[in-house]
């Protein structure tokens, strides 16, 4: 495009607020946009403030799996994660009675079953050898807290063990220590205490804090022993060494959860219009059931992992692939003959293009019978172009899901022009993602579309059908910059602020050149925003 790359940072971040009639009021702050492009060359490291965050459900599940071998996924029964900008966050709401009770009863139950069924994971010591048990408990707590125990905590945990072993028995004592570890604030919260240096300058996170950030980012879990050992040796302050750890962890099986988690949250398969809770009219879609929903989710998870972990790691492939990973139920949906009953790589017809035409996305962004121009168009506008669309004015009639008159009505059109023309392109796929020749009303489908340019969009010209739309998006610098921003938000569990501008700019610059998602993940992990901590004040 004609603009220098750095200017796109400011461009893409401006909310398209002015374009929409609607009551914005005291809504969320627009991302960076209102600020001029930063001068980053030679500037000191900067990072937006990361508020104290609780473990998300996937993090809790994976942590107890890796610490204690518990694969029961206890956090699935917890209160759903709070989300910010569409990614699990748990940074705003304070813990409440129900949430704390969730943790309490889960901790007791996990501890009990770990001691009863997997004691060797906790300690292989003879339980009468107190010194040996102490060592293993300290090691477990260090892994759980992602840092070495301070003397007070260590002493207290040992005292808990000793007194309980004496008052009851050693197995009970193990249970109680593990329960307390799982209830510790050092387990439940991502504690980052590295104080800021003089004034308000952000400080490099400590080695252990970096290890935790890295493992929760790349594995959605606690660090392994190798990463903790590197932290202990102080190696993680070396950017080059840090990069080798990122490579190692990205090559590991444990990264699959994180890649899939990004995909699901980016596509909006969890949260508001979730895939698993989508209701479909059984008279129209008798095949819709939890198994089919799960299959769609597996398809998308597998596809993301294939592209990012094993394939060419390219955003272009995410958007343009002419294949997916489907089982026989999905093959029927896609109108292809299955390669096997199990999930396997299958070529798809040429009206399909990557994630945009996957059943998961198309199904989640539709209603019980009808497709949704708004949900599909909004997804492209907000999650691919990073142009937020304001909400509807109050008291507007929202019963008609796809009303062409919205584009003529002065109260509606400025916002709907940003969504409906894009959404209409997807008419070729019904509310379960199947290809069709006629729309919900039985009329022939018009595949022509445009992306209405609200003054910021670099994707210009018309297109015909979703594949051509995907080609335009894949070639767009704005989409690349937006995708990088989405990963930034995912990795940091927050919206970016002005202090993140240089980190984001650097990350976007490289991604604009390569479109390589693995490099993007690496760049985010190496960025100042990820490695530095801005505490906001001194305690």
């Amino acid at each position, binding site marked *: 495009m004609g603009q220098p790359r750095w200017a796109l940072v400011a461009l893409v971040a401006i909310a398209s607020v002015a374009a929409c009639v609607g009551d914005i009021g005291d809504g969320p702050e627009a991302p960076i946009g209102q600020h001029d492009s930063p001068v980053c060359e030679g500037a000191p490291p900067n990072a937006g403030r990361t508020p104290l965050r609780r473990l998300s459900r996937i993090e809790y599940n994976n942590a107890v799996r890796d610490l204690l071998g518990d694969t029961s996924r206890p956090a699935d029964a917890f209160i759903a994660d709070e989300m910010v900008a569409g990614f699990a966050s748990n940074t*705003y709401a304070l813990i409440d009675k129900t949430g704390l009770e969730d943790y309490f009863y889960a901790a007791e139950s996990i501890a009990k079953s770990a001691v009863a069924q997997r004691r060797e994971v906790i300690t292989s010591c003879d339980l009468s050898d107190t010194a040996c048990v102490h060592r293993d408990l300290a090691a477990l707590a260090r892994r759980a807290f992602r840092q070495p125990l301070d003397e007070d905590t260590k002493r207290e945990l040992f005292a808990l063990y000793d007194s309980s072993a004496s008052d009851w028995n050693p197995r009970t004592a193990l249970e109680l220590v593990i329960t307390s570890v799982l209830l510790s604030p050092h387990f439940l919260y991502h504690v980052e205490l590295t104080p800021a240096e003089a004034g308000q300058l952000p400080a490099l996170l400590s080695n252990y804090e970096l290890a935790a950030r890295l493992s929760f980012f790349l594995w959605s879990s606690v660090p392994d022993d190798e990463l903790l050992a590197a932290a202990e040796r102080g190696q993680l302050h070396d950017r080059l060494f840090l990069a080798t750890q990122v490579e190692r962890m990205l090559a590991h099986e444990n990264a699959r959860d994180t890649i899939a988690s990004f995909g699901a949250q980016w596509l909006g398969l969890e949260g508001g219009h979730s895939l698993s809770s989508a209701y479909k009219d059984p008279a129209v879609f008798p095949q819709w059931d939890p198994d089919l929903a799960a299959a769609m989710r597996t398809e998308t998870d597998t596809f993301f992992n294939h592209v990012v972990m094993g394939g060419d790691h390219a955003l272009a492939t995410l958007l343009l692939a002419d294949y997916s990973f489907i089982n026989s139920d999905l093959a029927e949906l896609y109108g292809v003959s299955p390669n096997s009953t199990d999930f396997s790589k299958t070529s798809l017809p040429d009206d399909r293009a990557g994630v945009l035409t996957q059943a998961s996305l198309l199904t989640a962004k539709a209603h019980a019978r009808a497709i949704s121009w708004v949900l599909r168009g909004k997804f492209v506008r907000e999650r691919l172009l990073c142009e937020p669309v304001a909400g509807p004015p109050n008291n507007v009639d929202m019963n008609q899901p796809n009303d062409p008159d919205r584009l003529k009505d002065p109260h509606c059109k400025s916002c709907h022009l940003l969504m409906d023309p894009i959404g209409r392109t997807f008419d070729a796929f019904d509310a379960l993602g199947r290809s069709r020749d006629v729309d919900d009303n039985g009329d022939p489908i018009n595949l022509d579309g445009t992306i209405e340019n609200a003054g910021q969009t670099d994707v210009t010209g018309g297109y015909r059908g979703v594949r051509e739309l995907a080609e335009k998006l894949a070639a767009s610098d704005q989409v690349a910059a937006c995708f990088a921003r989405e990963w930034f938000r995912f990795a940091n569990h927050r919206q970016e602020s002005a202090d993140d501008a240089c980190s984001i700019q650097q990350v976007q610059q490289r991604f604009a050149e390569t479109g390589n998602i693995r490099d993007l993940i690496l760049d985010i992990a190496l960025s100042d925003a990820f490695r530095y901590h801005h505490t906001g004040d001194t*305690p």
Partner: protein
Amino acid sequence: MTARKLSRRHLLAGLGASAALIPLFNRIPSAHAADFPTRLVIYYTPHEPIGKSYWQPGPGFQLTEMLAPLNPHKSKILMVGDIDVVSRHDALRAGHNLIGHILTNQLNSYFGADYEFYAGGMSIDHYVAQALGVTPLVLGLAGGTPYGINRLSYTGKDQPFHPEKDPTAAYQSSFADFIVPAEQLAELRAKRKRVLDTVGLQLNRLSPRLPAEDRIKLDHHIEQANALEDRLLNGTGSGLSCSKVAPGPLDPDINANIPQLSRNHIDVLVQALACDITRVGTLQLGGSGGIGTPQWPSEGIDIAKDDHDIAHDFYLLGGAQEIADRIALERYHNQQFAYLLARLDAVQEGDGTLLDHTVVFYVKSMSHNHDADEVMMMLAGGANGALSGGRYLSAGGGASADLLVTVLNLMGMSDTSYGNPSYCTGPLNVS
């Protein structure tokens, strides 16, 4: 009002599963100088009550079709119509998001994009509970999505109080003292105390090291942990008997279980009130967008359509079937409400019943088609003589917040406004 710890001494002549529970309370001073304290139950159902022509009673308080299940209790129901959720005029988003306003009378607090919001203040269940020195029991099937669109009860701005969705878990944690045998209880408590004290040491060491904005979170965590420890260790336990029935285990995530789960929640709450484990309860039977697919023939409803779609199709398609379905859905909700009233009325308390000593506040957050200008709500029960039913009252376009103040006054509190005073005009006179 100073929080006063309740002294809970009960003698109950339990007679089995359908027992009338007979608690005897120490005399506790209350505004009504009654033998039994006044309780509060808030009952929320999703969507709107369709529209005025569907709920407005006929002469002589003749109930319409969708409200007919309430006929056996109508002498104890005061229906209030023509309520306006006035705060909606200043709201960034109204419609479903008004669920955040309805018990708080504050504008919502948006922290992210779209539906990423929480309510802007404390809801009245917690306000009343704090004044009484109790923890409210907040139960319900509120939908899994994490947004404010499914949250009704708050301890403060950005502090949602999540409903417990599993009635069995709610029962176990509320009645733990009574269901664990006494000898085991002592040992269990000793173990739990040791764990919680150990964790407490870590919490108290960590909190001062955090920056102010984060310290608030941990300090709140410490408060909750202290409250949890208090509940676990200081219940009334040994030597007392309180006859009550555990709900049968049911998977709370299965649509077919919703009606029975709802009744189980109601049973747990009624028992908790009768046993004076708490004096405030909130039953949130649905998120603002709905509760599930009402394929429940044993409940007299069998529609193969998500209730959110039922609500929308009433406006979108508006045919005879859509209208019948929509009425059937509201009838179902009112059947469950009738069950609550019946269970409260079955608990003998002195010369009256638990229902006579309770304020039941039935709320919805919309009036018709996402609007909120003609909302219908109900007050039920006797409020220890302060509330009389069997009639309909029009609020004449008065603010929904006025009704919140009325509820506070019925609970013996002297507040003259609640939440944002610019959205109040004064308590609705229900005498």
